């Protein structure tokens, strides 16, 4: 049985990646298992300058899901290059995906340029969809023009494949996907979290200090499947599918909808071995559904 797929020209042993923000720079998981079993992973959303993010509480819970309002805490691109990447080299030998965020066009460009030159990095995943930052992070992902603008600007300075990560909090994700493709994106990744809120009945206030947070986990799987399905129909570039994946059968479902590779996010937090276990379980599920090669089923629901 063949689990291999190719994402923007780079072969993956299997389509399972850990999603940005739920896997740090890999170190915490590398202590638990050999993370080279992963297809790859997308590291924590990185910005030009270091960021603390939002004050706590940053986490809330909901039925089959969680809200986070971490707000892109990261040490900044320089420290990532000087400290995290060299450290990562000791335990992860495959190309890693660099997740980049920004608050202005120029910031995206500078951060991507710096990361593009790092040999360990396979793909740039440009997050134009983080809903937890005030001052613009969201707006890039909610209109086709600005999404295209970021894509073009980043593409101009990068040699590596650029994957644009889309927000689900939009009326028409296909329009944004097409705009990114037209602007030169090599791939798309979706979905980021849905904007959500929980309130504390005792204090009568929102639980999160940031008021709103991003909903992820199994609760959003049907929304993610629909958006991957729609975007697959709208573009020709590969789609990285995510949102609620927590089993090998979810991986297959997401690939049928149109994903070339998938990412597992929140599930890593509640079950630290989940990516390893999903990868182990893939051949059994492939066998169950008569799948010889995973790359054959990409977008299989559309044929």
């Amino acid at each position: 049985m063949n689990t291999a797929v190719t994402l923007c020209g780079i072969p993956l042993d299997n389509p399972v990646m850990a999603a940005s923000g739920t896997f740090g720079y890999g170190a915490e998981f590398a202590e638990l298992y050999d993370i080279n079993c992963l297809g790859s992973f997308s590291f924590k959303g990185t910005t030009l300058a270091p960021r603390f993010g939002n004050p706590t509480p940053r986490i809330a819970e909901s039925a089959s899901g969680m809200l986070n309002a971490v707000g892109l805490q990261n040490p900044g691109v320089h420290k990532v290059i000087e400290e995290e990447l060299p450290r990562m080299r000791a335990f992860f030998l495959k190309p890693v995906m660099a997740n980049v965020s920004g608050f202005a066009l120029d910031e995206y460009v500078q951060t991507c340029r710096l990361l593009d030159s790092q040999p360990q990095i396979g793909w740039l995943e440009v997050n134009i969809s983080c809903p937890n930052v005030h001052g613009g992070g969201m707006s890039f992902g909610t209109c086709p023009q600005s999404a295209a603008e970021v894509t073009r600007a980043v593409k101009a300075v990068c040699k590596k494949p650029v994957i644009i990560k889309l927000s689900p909090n939009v009326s028409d994700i296909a329009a944004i996907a097409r705009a990114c493709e037209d602007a030169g994106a090599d791939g798309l990744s979706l979905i980021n979290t849905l904007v959500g809120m929980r309130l504390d009945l005792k204090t009568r206030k929102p639980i999160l200090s940031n008021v709103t947070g991003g909903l992820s986990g199994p609760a959003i799987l049907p929304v993610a499947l629909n958006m991957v399905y729609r975007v697959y129909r709208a573009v020709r570039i590969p789609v990285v599918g995510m949102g609620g994946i927590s089993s090998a059968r979810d991986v297959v479902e997401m690939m049928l909808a149109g994903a070339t590779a998938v990412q597992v996010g929140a599930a890593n937090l509640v079950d630290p071995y989940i990516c390893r276990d999903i990868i182990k379980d893939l051949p059994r599920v492939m066998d169950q559904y008569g799948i010889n090669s995973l790359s054959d089923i990409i977008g299989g629901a559309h044929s």
Partner: protein
Amino acid sequence: MTQGLYTVRSNRPIAALTYEMQLEGDTSALVRPGQFVNLRTGGHYLRRPLSVCAWDASGMTLIYKVVGEGTDWLSTCMPGDTIDMLCGLGNGFDTSVSGQYPLLVGGGVGLPPLYQLARQLVDEGKQPRLIMGFNSEREVFYRQEFERLLPVTVTTMDGSCGVRGLVTDVPPAADCTYFYACGPFPMLRALCGCMTVPGQLSLEERMGCGFGACMGCTIHTRLGDKRVCKEGPVFLKEELIW
């Protein structure tokens, strides 16, 4: 950190809405008092963090208060049931700096981690004391257990047991060399305001993972940004910013 299934040995109410649960299973990842576990409660997406109250080679004791759905579910567990836990999380208390007369201060369900701490301090030949604070007598637990180890002062807000008032209303002994505290945020802050000796405090934050992956629990400290689940939950009095 280890992940595993733990078997409930016993689960009994020990005070108002407060339960003691004994579990059997791998405790090899526990190295210091003040570490915690993160456990799956039926049907809830996130795990629940609970401090380890005591442990030995074959199992551990947890003490928890029913405050919501997850802890409510826990209270319905029966002997023989199994619980999925991440074990050995966080840094825990450092006893090497305690001096001879450390003071332990616990408020409500902040007390559990102080129990293993007290045992260890006593084992190390130190002479700790404990101030335990509650709202009222109905909430008091583990008084005897602690009294077997060390001198205990109980405070209650309503005066129904021990000294009326807050834990900070009890002046620490003059010879106090250090303090260790765990409890509600306002208690910890007040305590830091009035303690003259150095100390360590265990904090709580809402957690996504409990093992350092999500940055869900990061706080500013004077020594940089720290994850409560990984670099904490125990912090030095000196580093905390109130």
